[in-house]
């Protein structure tokens, strides 16, 4: 019998216990994987290369405070700016206020929006049709699939921020990277339907020459409008997306504290199991030692058993997490927050590794004690 086989046999000697431990560790590390995935999606994704070229200019106070459209030409004239487009969050209601009928609705300029969002793709004839129809709109492929929309369909959005009911016709279906998907329609619709906001828009998205130009450009834009009636706040698209998350509160602390609780709980479970399992085998350990196994080998045997078990738990948890995350991404309850979230391979590896480390730490004390134990006492032990 090889040592690996010995470890494997021992790990499964009490099948019920092994399975319960695996499940318990697995569920905890599943949660850890989900939290790591959320963390990764919120704070570690760099976005697309195109996104790095863009910055967003909004009112210093909030997106609910509008900016005059005249800013657009002023921004366009600045060095380093390729294209500028205005966007306004319409926030209308489609059908009812159920979460599954909620999606992003933007009023914008059809002539330039595709030049700024270089990563959007749409058939040229559909784009042209949209540009020609003031009451037209375009929707992204996922949204079109979800609501079963086809070109030519009518969509009515009941205005809540604006006293305008947008009655739109789908003119195109486009693909967009995560975060910018939704429905886009012509800003003229709001201007004419609600003259009080005519000439004002929610924010501007600017396409810069290069990613390096973005931060300098943001500073000079804010500098330009600092002493105006409506000062601006400009930031990269990534920083802007982060600010949405920051609105929820201290998300980082929330995730971190859950992760810590989870890891600690896993540690307890694993330590408890190993302590029980090793105590049961006191006599066997003494026997192994009489057969000539050194203390080091005995220690290594127990440790690898524990590490193997916990790492398996971690892997199981990570695999289950990818299913859970897929469910979260699809659930309307989560809103736009978890859209497109996926468990990546590195995250799974980290979860498995965390499992292994937990196994190592939790088994050390009982395994060490067992390996040090006196042979005669061990043989006399009554389980």
């Amino acid at each position, binding site marked *: 019998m090889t040592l690996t086989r010995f470890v494997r046999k021992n790990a499964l000697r009490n099948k*019920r*216990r092994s399975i*319960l*431990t695996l*499940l*318990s*560790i*697995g*569920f*905890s590390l*599943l*949660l850890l994987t*989900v939290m790591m995935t*959320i963390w990764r999606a919120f704070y570690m994704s760099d976005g697309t290369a195109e996104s790095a070229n863009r910055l967003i200019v909004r009112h*210093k*106070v*909030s*997106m*609910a*405070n509008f900016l005059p459209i005249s800013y657009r030409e002023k921004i366009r004239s600045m060095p380093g700016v390729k294209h500028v487009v205005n966007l306004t969050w319409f926030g209308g209601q489609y059908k009812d206020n159920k*979460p599954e009928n909620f999606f992003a609705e933007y009023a914008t300029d059809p002539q330039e929006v595709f030049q700024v969002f270089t990563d959007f793709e749409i058939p040229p004839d559909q784009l042209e049709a949209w540009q020609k129809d003031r009451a037209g709109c375009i929707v992204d492929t996922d949204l079109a699939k979800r609501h079963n929309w086809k070109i030519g369909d009518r969509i009515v959005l*009941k*205005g*809540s*921020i*604006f*006293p305008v009911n947008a009655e739109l016709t789908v003119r195109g279906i486009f693909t967009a990277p995560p975060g910018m998907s939704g429905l886009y329609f012509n800003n003229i619709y709001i201007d004419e339907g609600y003259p*009080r906001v005519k000439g004002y828009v929610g924010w501007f998205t600017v396409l810069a020459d290069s990613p390096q130009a973005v931060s300098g450009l943001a500073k000079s834009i804010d500098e330009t409008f600092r002493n105006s009636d409506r000062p601006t706040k400009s930031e990269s698209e990534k920083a802007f997306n982060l600010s949405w998350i920051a*609105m*929820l*509160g*201290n998300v980082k602390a929330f995730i971190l*504290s*859950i992760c810590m*609780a*989870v890891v*600690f*709980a896993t540690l*307890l*479970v694993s*330590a*408890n*199991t190993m*302590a*029980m399992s090793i105590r049961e085998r006191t006599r066997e350990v003494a026997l192994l030692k009489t057969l000539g196994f050194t203390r080091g080998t005995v220690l290594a045997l127990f440790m690898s058993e524990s590490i193997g078990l916990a790492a398996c738990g971690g892997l199981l948890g990570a695999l289950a997490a990818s299913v*859970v995350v897929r469910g*979260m991404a699809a*659930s309307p*309850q*989560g*809103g736009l*927050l978890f859209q497109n979230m996926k468990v990546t391979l590195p995250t799974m590896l980290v979860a498995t590794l965390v499992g292994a480390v937990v196994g190592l730490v939790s088994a050390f004390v009982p395994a060490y004690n067992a390996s040090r134990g006196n042979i005669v006492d061990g043989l006399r032990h009554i389980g």
Partner: protein
Amino acid sequence: MAVPLQYNIRNLLLRKGATVMTALGIALTVTTAIFIMALLAGLRDAFATSGEPNNVLVLRKGSTSELTAGGVSRDALPVIKDLPGVARDAQGQPMVSGEDITVIVLPRTDGTGETNVTVRFMTPTGIELRPRVKLTEGRWFTPGQREIVVSKSIHKRFAQANLGDQIWIGKGNWTVVGIFDSGGSAHDSEIWADINQLASDYDRTYYNSVYIGATDPVAADALKNRVTNDQRLELSGMLETDYFAEQTSTGRPIKFVGVIVAVIMAIGSCFAAMNTMYAAVAYRSREIATLRVIGFSRPSILTSFVLESLLLSLLGALVGIVLMLPFNGMTTGTQNPVTRSEAVFSLRMTPFVVGSAVVFAVLMGLFGGLAPAWHAARREILASLRD
């Protein structure tokens, strides 16, 4: 006959290591669950308990928020004042307050950046319409002066919000002359100032919203419909309590993630408790057989082990509750999607939250203990005694 509870307690004490570790695992799960529930309870408290049952909020038709409304013309006010059911103050004036809301950026005291804060411009009648809001320091603003009154939590959370400090709003500096306590309602995140001063700053001819005090809740309901149906006004009325209750949706993402976290952790802890209880049963198989021989029935053995598991989880719940106590009342902020500014709320371990946590733990103990207890009760006496 039931096995004495003492037997279970002694057994838990005997196997200290396993007991402590399992209970701590359950405690962590309970702590997490309490944390999330307390967060949601605080949010609910801040919004759902806000608003006076007598008050009717009037907004432009179709608008759902005070911030984005922007459309009650000043001409509408006399019409509203004449509606039947409007309460009158001591001087016999109708209790109607035209209001406006704006959002400003303030730096946080703890240096974690800037946050949006809501400024509510109102009339002195507006203060009377909110009798639960109490002045704790200084005085209310004087109409026609650039004076503001800040809430207690804004005073605590932001620099330059002390008595006598100046805050830049709109076109000039305003002086803090008072601090109010809103009793945990949504006004807890607001600054109050005089509407007429704002109107002259911005040359505004309309209010964002109008608050009406009705004589009683029944009149408020009638008044709400009367405003909505009045053809001259093109406005819609709603009960103030309903308006704030809507804003609880702020907590939706927290709730969504929170429920997932709590359920997954609970399942994990269930398995851990099951593990411990199976081990406890295995250790005592001869003991159990002896109990059977003495005359304890299978059901009483089953009950005894389930009780032991429940004791374990209750211990966990207790530790979890104690661990969370220091966080009770801790204030935190999130963004209110309706007003786009910081909504301050505190973690609240209400009796309901603590009660649910205990129930939660008991469920874990029950599920964790049932299978092992069943196993213990089913074993053959002879086989166990020979073990």
